[in-house]
């Protein structure tokens, strides 16, 4: 017996089939605010079947690609029919996930194992990968950013890991009255009827902030650590280059890379983009706040 759960994240629906008892309520908690009763098949981004048997998801392909980051290793295998198998290895060295994804990214099977934190990493990564792959052609970006909501608009802070995205958001929360955290790690950007929106998501890094809301984007800022505070507007390729590295994408997949390119091009035409060289202090928060607000009054 499987439990069927429908979700709507960033306005895109997906369905999970989970064998009874495989995932606890606690493990699905980040997804709970996004539960929906029904899911229209024609509007469904993808379906993920969780399965108990790891061995049925063996890749049996020699050629693979390893990608490593601070969370673990992702190994990709491409099959002759265009489908893909992905293995996730946690930092501990334990293989905690195997995923098989159809060529059109609409159906997937996954096995998840390991410690509770590895299972959490496996589930989140699987869903984020599927979400990114299946939504790329729909003017959607899963973007690595900490995001503040202020006066009905969303402000995204980008930067390499450890730059201080969360710190900058927390400086706003502390010093800018009326600001709220929308998402601390992976919100979603979408273009709808020519307008750019940011959505909270079920992926928020280490912060429990899973908000099912959508607001127009007021600005995007890339942070750089510096011994001073200075903000500069960016346009054209510089604005583009500031957003691209923060967007999830299989950049070696030509079709997907073109789709992400098209979405980013639209975003930079419509949204003010800045580079902020900053210290982790109150003055930095006020500088970005005043600059962004002057564009949104």
């Amino acid at each position, binding site marked *: 017996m499987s439990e069927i759960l429908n979700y709507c994240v960033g306005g895109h629906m997906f369905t999970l089939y989970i064998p009874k008892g495989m995932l606890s309520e606690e493990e699905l908690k980040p997804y709970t605010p996004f539960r929906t009763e029904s899911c229209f098949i024609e509007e469904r981004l993808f379906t993920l079947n969780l399965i108990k048997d790891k061995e049925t998801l063996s890749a049996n392909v020699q050629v693979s690609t390893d990608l490593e980051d601070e969370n673990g290793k992702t190994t990709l295998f491409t099959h002759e029919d265009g489908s893909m198998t992905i293995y996730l290895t946690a930092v501990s060295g334990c293989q905690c996930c195997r995923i098989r994804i159809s060529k059109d990214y609409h159906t997937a099977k996954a096995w998840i194992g390991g410690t509770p934190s590895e299972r959490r990493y496996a589930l989140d990564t699987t869903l984020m990968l599927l979400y990114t792959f299946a939504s790329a052609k729909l003017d959607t970006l899963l973007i690595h950013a900490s995001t503040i909501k202020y006066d009905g608009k969303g402000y995204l802070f980008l930067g390499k890991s450890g730059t201080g995205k969360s710190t900058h958001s927390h400086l706003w929360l502390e010093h800018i009255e009326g600001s709220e955290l929308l998402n601390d790690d992976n919100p979603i950007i979408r273009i709808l009827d020519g307008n750019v929106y940011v959505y909270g998501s079920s992926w928020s890094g280490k912060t429990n902030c899973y908000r099912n809301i959508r607001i127009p984007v007021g600005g995007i800022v890339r942070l750089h650590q510096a011994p001073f505070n200075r903000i500069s507007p960016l346009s*054209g*390729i510089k604005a583009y280059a500031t957003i*691209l*590295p923060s967007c999830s994408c299989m950049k070696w997949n030509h079709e997907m890379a073109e789709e992400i*390119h098209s979405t980013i091009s639209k975003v930079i035409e419509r949204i003010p983009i800045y580079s902020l060289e900053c210290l982790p202090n109150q003055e930095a928060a006020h500088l970005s706040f005043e600059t962004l607000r002057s564009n949104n009054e």
Partner: protein
Amino acid sequence: MKKIKGFAMRRLGQDAMIVAESVDLIDFDKIVSLNSSAAYVWESLQETDFTTQTITDILMQRYDVEEKVAHKDASELVNLWLNAGIIKE
């Protein structure tokens, strides 16, 4: 010289850029911006071997410039692209 495999040119309004689009170039996180004449040269070169003279000829055919000027521009472009790591000797 030759283009290094795995790069793609993308257009952004009047400008263009070269981005990595290959698993082998997964760690190449730079974006090389091109003005309109550099973009024209990049497209014209295709995948074949070329020299600074090849680029000089492309520039002279397309734009009304003297060989001396075209050659100087071509050398600059070659240096820029070699340093950026998108072409090789």
